[in-house]
């Protein structure tokens, strides 16, 4: 088991190198000169442009720029963005906010998705099942920004139950609304995955055996049916954490959350390669670790799976 974990952690090294190289190259290849973004509508004098290029190593070829960045990473110096701010500070600022948002969304989709999915699965074809299927289909079909603006307008502006935007410190209560919006689509998927999985397992041999042994209905459902139905759901949730962290651009924009998605979006527009790569690298690490945790959970959920 521990060997398995060590091997998986070591695998992160090539992933890190490959991902940073690829992302750095992609940002480097974006059309347009980053100094044009710094200089704005008015432009700068050629002397100022030249000085800016030198300051941010934009006059260097790709390999030199990439090497300087990696050198910085290894010496714990991520450098500064075009506004002269430490990239490390920016990361420390935005990741906690987005992590809070993503985890709240994840908890929301996991709790309600599994609960509703379980009920629907056990009562297949009944009124609750049919209703929830239609509702989840609608949620999946409607784009997230429509849902976002809709919830913001109803809950935030018209009902006044929550602030339509999130303030700087991003406290827990203000993040509830955006977290629900962010988790809504995945909630629908979790629900449907759980439902299908439950329906499959309800008629499995071991469930019949458990019932025949005289176990209570409660125990059969929670320990035998639910636990065995969790593998696809956990796989989905694990992958979703990464998506929620990096893919919250739309939700963060609607609710004005100062998070990872927006910082990334701005950095891409400005051609700030070091910022983009630094953020993406952290996202990749989160994604890999989340997947490792998911793989370990498999063994716990299903005793037939073993890692050696």
């Amino acid at each position, binding site marked *: 088991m521990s060997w398995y974990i060590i091997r998986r952690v070591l695998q992160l090294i090539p992933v890190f190198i490959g991902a940073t190289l690829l992302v750095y190259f992609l940002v480097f290849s974006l059309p347009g*000169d*980053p100094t044009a973004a710094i200089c704005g509508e*008015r432009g700068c004098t050629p002397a100022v442009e030249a000085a800016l290029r030198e300051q941010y190593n934009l006059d260097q070829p790709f390999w030199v720029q990439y090497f300087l960045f990696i050198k910085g990473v290894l010496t714990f110096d991520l450098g500064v963005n075009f506004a002269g701010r430490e990239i490390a500070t920016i990361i420390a600022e935005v990741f906690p906010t987005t992590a809070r948002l993503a985890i709240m969304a994840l908890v929301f989709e996991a709790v309600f998705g599994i609960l509703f999915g379980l009920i629907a699965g056990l009562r297949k074809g009944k009124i609750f099942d049919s209703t929830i299927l239609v509702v989840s289909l609608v949620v999946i079909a409607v784009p997230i920004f429509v849902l976002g603006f809709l919830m913001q307008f109803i809950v935030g502006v*018209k009902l006044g139950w929550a*602030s339509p*935007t999130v303030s700087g410190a991003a406290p827990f209560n203000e993040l509830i609304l955006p977290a629900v919006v962010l988790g809504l689509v995945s909630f629908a998927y979790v629900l449907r995955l759980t439902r299908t999985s439950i329906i499959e397992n309800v008629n499995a041999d071991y469930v019949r055996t458990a019932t025949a042994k005289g176990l209570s209905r409660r125990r059969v459902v929670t320990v035998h049916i639910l636990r065995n139905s969790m593998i696809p759901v956990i796989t989905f949730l694990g992958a979703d954490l990464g998506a929620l962290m990096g893919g919250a651009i739309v939700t963060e924009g609607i609710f004005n959350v100062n998070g990872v998605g927006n910082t990334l979006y701005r950095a891409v*527009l*400005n051609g700030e390669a070091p910022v983009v790569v630094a953020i993406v690298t952290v996202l990749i690490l989160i994604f890999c670790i989340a997947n490792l945790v998911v793989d370990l959970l498999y063994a716990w959920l299903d005793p037939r799976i073993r890692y050696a």
Partner: protein
Amino acid sequence: MRLARISKVVGVALTATLALSACGGSGEDAASNTDRPIVVDGVEPQNPLIPTSTNEVGGGAVVDLIFSGLVSYDADGVSQNEMAESIETEDAQNYTITLAEGKTFTNGEPVTAQSFVDAWNYGAAAKNAQLSSYFFESIEGYDEVSAEGSELEEMSGLTVVDERTFTVALSQPESDWPLRLGYSAFSPLPEVAFEDFEAFGENPIGNGPYKFAAEGAWEHNQQIALVPNEDYDGPQAAQNAGVTFKMYQNGSTAYQDLISDNLDVLKTVPTSDVQNFKNDLDDRWLESPYAGNQTISIPYYLENWDGEDGKLRRQAISMAIDREEITTVIFNNGRTPATEFTAPVLEGYNDSLPGSENLEFNPERAVELWEEAEAIEPYDDSEPLTIAYNADAGDHRTWVEAVVNGLKNNLDIEVSGLPFSTFAELRTNATDKTLTGAIRTGWQADYPSLYNFLGPIHATGAGSNDSVYENPEFDQALSDGLAADSVEAGAEAMNKAQEMLLEDLPSIPLWYQVAQGGWSQNVDNVEFGWNGVPLYNAITTK
């Protein structure tokens, strides 16, 4: 922006349903308290808050409140003394500037002649790479200190006479030079700035009507909190308990905060809400023309648009655009049709210059002109006209499409919009002269002067001359205007220069900007200045 448009559709549908069910909840949580700072919408500054390195609106709005230059502009764009007691000249080339007594920075340091001279030298020197360095270009010695690789630190034209007096020698006479001095790049800097600019840009110390509420009042991407500077005794004294700039990533979000009274002032109503903001806000909105315009520039390095036939085609294009209709329908009167190259709020503006008929909608004449051009040299169909714009900000797509459709219908030529994904990409093509068609351009005034709309854009070799217009007569007319002995005489010469532009149309003026802003139920006295920025200091809470 696609997001924004959808929100409008959704919003309209919802307003209807919710209005019926009468569940309006806004306004209840509005804490009205006269001691609280007003909350206004802002954009995260892209650079440290140093006056000479601030070149965009986000930082500009803050810098303007915490720094005061020699003069400032009132609501109409008229200069009023701030730090200056007098600015005198006899030949429009050599200026003697005397500072008012007893002015200080918020750290107690006096504002002296040296504070100005040091700040300007710092701003101009190439080695400091300040984004607004070109503002000092008129001062003698600028060329030397700003040359690429130059290590020089001081412009020869600036001389400190005594504590409160300094002289400025320009490299040529320029009568409108004093008008520029209200622009933030000309602000003074305290000595502490020169010790550590990085730290200073994070926690600037100024001499303006406001100051940072505390060390670290700039919470990046969140807000900047300013409180009144009690030592400030100039014309822009604060009428409120402070101004907090709340940073927004998009206008639609800010608008939602405004209508739920979480935001006090919104300076630009987003395009998605332009059709409904007058209803949403009752009488808490205004439309105020300001010194900015929108144009499209067609480069002279394109075969079809050069020479005599090119000129006729430019005129044809201009006459085939129905400015009246676009400003009414698309912008809901949020723009006014252009009649020349500057802006109506400026001193010396004239809406009936000879040649202004070239900016009037006249499809029949447009077709005639196009045919005349065809007779000289046929239009090369393999390079159909495109209008380039950036799709990442500013919502240019809507009006570009409207212009394109107008040209297609009225001239029967092939035209299309050409979106670039980022602003940087668009600008790089313009600076490298690799545009394949027209480009959306426009200008927001830095200082209230006709020259500001003409020189930087159309003078030979100027920084923003995207169409690469080169006309020695026009350059001469500009120089004459600058050398005139009064601002009025200068304006007359500038308008003479504009007549050449109206004939040649290196860029095609479309419309003038109108600020469309709104405010919450908790504030009063909201007015916008000549440059479309709210007069923050005058806003009161209730």
